[in-house]
């Protein structure tokens, strides 16, 4: 136990760490004794089949779920014992499928991100205004700042929510499946934005993704989960392999490198021999 922690934890600086996290009921924990250090300044992407515990891990890191055992440390402090508002100044969260109240404008939504920095009497400082404008610029939602969120397209809406988390001005941002139900082009745009946040603005991002190819293309660190445990963990070039995909997703796929972008892509292969035989047989008949 202690061995595995020390062997893993020295590799890079990490402000957010999970230590032997167990989440869920005793009989069937969703997450079982997981150690995890979020590398600073990188895009870390969690992937895994349904029920693997990737969203649960993210929620535990974001203190939405309280682990039954283990703890989450933010700058060395137990996150569940810290003041939640102080945590919110360092750690932002975009939950899965958030819904804005009817009629709320983009600017008002983004302004909600200032919540941990405000108080009853201090609700709109110049600092707040600056942060909101900057967040809207970065997320490219300035053009429709005064339109209601519920009237926007899915991709625009998701950018608004990202702007809200940006306005929170946290060094760490956790995002739970931010690209679900979006067109591929919009997914790519969003991922480009997230990578830019990490690499140019020094934010640390943890993202749960469904799309394997997107994950491989944009992750600095790729984390594969299965059955409530982390199975593989490292840069995509090490982790995103045919063998690992088979082991974690039970997926038969080739992993190839795109000659132009040099990114890794997996191409599922149809479950192999017998099908071909039948096809041949049909032709002969």
């Amino acid at each position, binding site marked *: 136990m202690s061995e595995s922690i020390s062997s893993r934890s020295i590799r890079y600086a990490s402000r957010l760490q999970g230590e032997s996290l167990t989440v869920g009921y005793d009989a069937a924990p969703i997450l079982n004794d997981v150690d995890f250090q979020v590398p600073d300044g990188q895009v870390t992407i969690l992937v895994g089949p349904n029920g693997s515990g990737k969203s649960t891990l993210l929620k535990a890191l974001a203190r939405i779920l309280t682990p039954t055992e283990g703890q989450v440390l933010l700058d060395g402090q137990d996150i569940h014992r810290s003041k939640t508002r102080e945590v919110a100044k360092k750690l932002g969260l975009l939950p899965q499928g958030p819904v804005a109240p009817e009629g709320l404008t983009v600017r008002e939504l983004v302004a909600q991100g200032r*919540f941990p920095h405000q108080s009853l009497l201090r609700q709109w400082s110049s600092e707040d205004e600056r942060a909101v404008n900057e967040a809207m610029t970065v997320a490219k939602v300035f053009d429709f700042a005064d339109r209601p969120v519920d009237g926007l397209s899915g991709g625009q809406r998701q950018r608004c929510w990202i702007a809200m988390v940006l306005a929170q001005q946290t060094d760490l941002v956790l995002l739970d499946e931010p690209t679900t139900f979006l067109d591929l082009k919009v997914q790519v745009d969003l991922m480009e934005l997230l990578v830019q946040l990490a690499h140019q603005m020094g934010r640390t991002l943890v993202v749960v993704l469904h799309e394997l190819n997107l994950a491989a293309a944009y992750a600095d660190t790729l984390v594969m989960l299965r059955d409530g445990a982390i199975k593989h963990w490292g840069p995509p070039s090490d982790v995103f392999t045919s063998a690992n995909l088979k082991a974690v997703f039970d997926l038969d796929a080739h992993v190839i490198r795109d000659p132009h972008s040099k990114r890794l892509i997996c191409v599922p292969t149809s479950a192999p021999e017998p099908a071909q035989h039948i096809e041949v047989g049909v032709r002969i008949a």
Partner: protein
Amino acid sequence: MTLRLSHYWVLRLPGERLSLRLPVKALLLALLMTLGLLSLIALSLTIGSYEMSLRQVLSTLLGDEISGQMTTVVWEFRFPRTLVAAFVGTMLALSGAALQNVTRNGLADPSLVGISQGAGLAVVTLTVLWPDQSSALRPWVAFAGSLIVAALIQGLSWNRRGGSSIRFILMGIGVAAFISAITSALMTYGQIDRAMSALAWLSGSINAAGWSEVRMVSVWCAVLMPPLLILSRSMSALQMGESTAVGLGVRASVIRYALISVAVGLAAIATAAVGPLGFVGLIAPHMARRLARSGVGIHLLLTALIGAFVVTLADLLGRALFAPIQIPAGLVTAIIGVPVFIYLLQKSQAKSAL
């Protein structure tokens, strides 16, 4: 100090200890509503079986004794009654706003989710079984009854997948039917005079309200409104869902219980004072939202004003329309409220189906 005019006034004191962003339209509207409410109260004071002019009412209120009868009518009957109506409206409206926020359900109302019925049962029990108890006990009993019923409904509508707000409403209808039946049975059991006084109270009548009721509702208003004001910031974050709110640094579980307690408290005290008044808590928050868009703080202010206006108007209509017969305000709010409820049902989200 800077002051800029656009959709919002941004008010910032030097050093920014105080910095607020105030929606212009909503603030102006709040001002208008305040004036409207004051005029309605003044009008309400002039109307009744004893005719008085506005001037007479005002000078009586200012302490000039025009005639002993006028002083009695204004100070002993109409003024306390109108004040109680306004306070009760405020409390029910704010209770509805808090409930709608915490259940994330636009159809929540203290009378629809059994809270008023809980208070009703508790007060009727007290009236019928222990008639000698002083009325000072009423608010506490009402509060306890409401809290038990609210907890019951919450417990019943919670399951492994967590609480669903729609189930909360259906559960409220069922529990309300059950509690109303027990209340009726109690009144059958009780002596006829006590039952009659309980019956008058149960239809939500402000007839009998006097200065002791004014004292009760105003004191409790003063106790329960500051917590709500403090909670208002968290309410605005909670509007976007519990996970988002937690991410923003809201202690969601604590806030949830605090909000429910305040909502139950407000509704219970109002019910203890005048009996159950339905639909005010449903209508007022929606009207406020439709009239002007604003943050939660100003929205609560508008909601409170509209609630006060609606109940004062309901009381006035109830006693003026068919004078000398008095229609309890609770019946008037139900008749106004049901069409609004149906309208809101049409507008509600399809995805919220059971």
